[in-house]
């Protein structure tokens, strides 16, 4: 009986895993993807926030940091975080990349060097900047406030293809799996194309660890109750920041990798609501449209975006007890909402409990608190100048951009993954996801995770089979290659 030995096993199907799988499959490699979450047809994604959290995310929705100051979220479904994220896709600037270069010792972290990787992934995605025609009342308040206060703003750029806001669609289901397959999750883009090229995917497969060997890597875990084991010449961990660090720690590699689990960041976010006399209808149309584009904010380490959420999340985030809460909920249509996202600089740490449970040590440091305060002050200013009747600050911070833990760099004492995307000392084991980040960029991470995956594909395949710098537009491309 022959058991398969793949060229590559990729654990995790999110921003990093999805893009990498596509490029490896396109180079003719035999690739197996293992994903803990389930596969969904777009129309079957849960249609309410509670079910979506429970079924598409880890730990039923939120995982608290050890001190419970931050609620972290991450996707657990085919497509990973890209299925439950807002898919705002931004390139990093030199402020972020210079810091990476300094920390990692890799000069390939620069806008110029990253340019062609961004070009390549963007070419395979449908990207749209949210036009003013798609604004709702919340966006207008945001724009009005920014303009009155003299701050610079910019439209958000999003991976989407057919949201049809102009046609009246306001499903607002982006964070629970896009039923229209408009949002450019890997489940809607890279993965189906990779499957056409021969990628095999096993979903519902929870990986516990890896054993690195001289001729291949054994990857072990569970599908339901069944214990499984797979073999490949190389294994790529793309299980996300928490996932990949956990797999490495659980494999007993903590001693060999002193930097493992260190340097964890999450862009803590705080939302602030305001009540207006007139209906705002923040749930209509594009529930996010605008971001701050002000160099002063960037320098101060925060950014602002307009945002909104369905009633369940609103109920969770609105402050106050009993009546006060009830009143705000009743005025759901009158609520505006802006978030401040902080570029955090105080590194957190990931560890495993004796029982193998992931522990997330991450608290808000003084710099993050200061940055949040500055942002919150501006939000209040915006609400003030736009005539809000009441301002309500969400009690908890949330972390959606989970980064670091397996930093890329030159040295084993300060990083986990080498410039070739291999774990130090383990040439057949790779990490390609948000855990590579040496620090928090203060910018939406997923496009850069994808760009790194493209770069990783080049590194793994070597010069000859490197993916094209820029591939042509999507469906045609896939069709051509598989023909």
């Amino acid at each position: 009986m022959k058991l398969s030995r793949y060229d590559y096993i990729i654990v995790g199907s999110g921003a990093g895993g999805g893009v990498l799988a596509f490029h490896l499959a396109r180079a003719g490699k035999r690739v197996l993807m293992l994903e803990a979450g389930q596969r969904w047809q777009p129309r079957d994604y849960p249609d309410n926030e509670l079910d979506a959290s429970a079924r598409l995310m880890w730990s039923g929705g939120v995982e608290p940091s050890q001190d419970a100051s931050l609620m972290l979220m991450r996707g657990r479904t085919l497509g990973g975080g890209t299925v439950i994220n807002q898919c705002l896709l931004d390139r990093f600037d030199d402020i972020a990349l210079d810091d990476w270069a300094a920390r990692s010792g890799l000069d390939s972290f620069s806008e110029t060097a990253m340019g062609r990787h961004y070009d390549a992934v963007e070419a395979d995605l449908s990207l749209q900047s949210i036009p003013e025609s798609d604004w709702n009342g919340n966006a207008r308040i945001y724009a009005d406030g920014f303009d009155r206060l003299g701050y610079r703003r910019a439209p958000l750029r999003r991976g989407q293809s057919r949201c049809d806001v102009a046609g009246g669609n306001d499903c607002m289901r982006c964070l629970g799996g896009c039923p229209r397959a408009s949002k450019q999750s890997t489940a809607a883009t890279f993965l189906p194309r990779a499957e056409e090229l021969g990628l095999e995917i096993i979903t519902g497969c929870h990986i516990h660890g890896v054993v690195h060997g001289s001729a291949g890597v054994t990857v072990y875990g569970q599908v339901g109750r069944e214990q499984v084991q797979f073999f490949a010449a190389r294994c790529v961990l793309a299980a996300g920041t928490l996932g990949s660090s956990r797999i490495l720690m659980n494999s007993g590699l903590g001693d060999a990798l002193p930097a493992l689990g260190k340097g964890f960041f999450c862009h803590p976010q705080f939302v602030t609501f305001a009540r207006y006399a007139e209906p705002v209808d923040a749930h209509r149309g594009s529930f996010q449209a605008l971001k701050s584009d002000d160099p002063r904010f960037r320098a101060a380490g925060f950014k602002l975006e307009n945002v909104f959420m369905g009633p369940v999340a609103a109920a969770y985030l609105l402050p106050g007890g009993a009546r006060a809460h009830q009143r705000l909920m009743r005025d759901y249509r009158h609520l505006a909402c802006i978030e401040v996202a902080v570029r955090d600089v105080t590194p957190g740490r990931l560890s495993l409990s004796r029982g193998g449970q992931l522990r997330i040590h991450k608290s808000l440091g003084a710099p993050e608190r200061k940055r949040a305060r500055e942002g919150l002050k501006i939000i209040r200013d915006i609400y003030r100048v736009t005539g809000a009747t009441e301002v309500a600050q969400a009690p908890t911070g949330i972390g959606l951009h989970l980064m670091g833990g397996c930093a890329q760099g030159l040295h084993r004492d300060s990083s986990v993954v080498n410039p070739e995307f291999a774990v130090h000392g383990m040439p057949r084991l790779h990490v390609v996801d948000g855990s590579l980040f040496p620090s928090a960029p203060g910018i939406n991470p997923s496009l850069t995770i994808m760009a790194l995956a493209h770069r990783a594909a080049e590194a793994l395949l070597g010069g000859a089979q490197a993916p094209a710098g820029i591939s042509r537009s999507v469906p045609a491309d896939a069709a051509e290659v598989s023909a």
Partner: protein
Amino acid sequence: MTATHYLDQARTAAEGLRESSLKERLAELALLRQRIDQRREDIAEQVMAETGKCRTDALVSEIMGSLDYLHWLNKAAPAVLADEKVSTPIALMGKASRIWHEALGTVLIITPWNYPLHIALTAIAPAFAAGNAVILKPSEHTPLKGLLESLVADLPLLSSALQIAYGDGDTARALIDARPDKICFTGSAATGKAILAQAAPLLIPVDLELGGKDAMLVFDDVDLHRTSAGALWGAFTNAGQSCTSVEALYVQRPLYRDMVATLAQQLDALIVNEGDAGDADIGAMTTDFQCDIVEAQLEDARKKGAQIHGGGRIAGTRLLRPALVTEVTPDMLLMQQETFGPVLPVLAFDNEAEAIRQVNNSGFGLSASVWSKDLDRAARVARALRVGAVSINNVMLTEGNPALPFGGVGASGSGRVKGAEGLRGMTRSKAVLIDKQHGKLEANWYPYTREKYRLFGQLISGLSGKGLAALLRFARAGLQLESHAQKPRRNP
């Protein structure tokens, strides 16, 4: 170099060793032990590269096992090899009796590929300690070229006493024809027979450590989790390529189902890989032909109706996933031949006598294990088994103690290595009786006379009789004989 050269050199070395003391030889073995310890990671790497073993197997059985043995040898050898005084019977009063344990001269050691370091060292070391020159012919599949040479390089006695002849069966045959004083062979029964046949006309003694089909007998009063874990380790350590691997697990019927379920679950968690860092459970098979044998046996079993849980070869590698086989029948190859791979057949038995009969009928008889809370029962069964070693409530553990002898019964071979017996096996005992210089003639010397004959009769009755009277009769006959012996035959 030809076989004759090897032997000539060995004979010269053996002559040279006669000048050395046991103490000097043991001192070199102690240094060898240190060297192995210092270089253990290197050695593990080389062993892993040639055998495919996972790192823990390489470290624990090859290196730790060898170090353990050397440690024991250093402590035990002085007593085991010391000249022995033995009592001298009353009839030989006034004389002293001794046994000297002397070197054989040249020992040819032919080793297999499954434990290339351990098996070689546990034969070389006692042979050398006893004062022999050694020629090692390692398996061509795992020669570990240069390793032993480098380990003994600056040990003058050992480096002159040890030669390594690399090659295959032809090399071995030529070496045997060059007439070493002893052959120690570890390997398959087929090769063992051929060696014995070649050695017979040359009258070279041969120790044979051959294969097994070792059984594990489990009664229904055991701790299920521990016993299952023991069975899996016993069956799969070194990827099942041990002569004492558990190759048939007999479980008392009331426990059978639960045990199979537990085994299956524990088996699924075993990680297969090679070139690991200590974190793989089961390494690769050493040779392609052994993979083929294992796969063929499984295929045969499947065709004959066996249920197989697990198994399979990872494409392009020598990694076999372990297999649990149930619904086993005696007509299956895996119940008739040694498997030497990660395969565990599980059978049910109803009573003690039946289980013993099944085990003793296998033809092989290397080792076995018996598992029961009832130690009387376990000991009873252990005595009834026709094997060379039994572990009770443990598996393959007799090998864990270098003081215990190792060797088989029947098709599993003869002769013992390790332990005092193994060390003595590298010697021939020389019987020595010492009398003083004096003028007296012995009673049993000539001349034979009727009187002497009568007195010998009395002496014998005295010797075999009981009580004081008998003793007196013996003494009187003895004295009379002695004085009679001094007289010449009467000349007419």
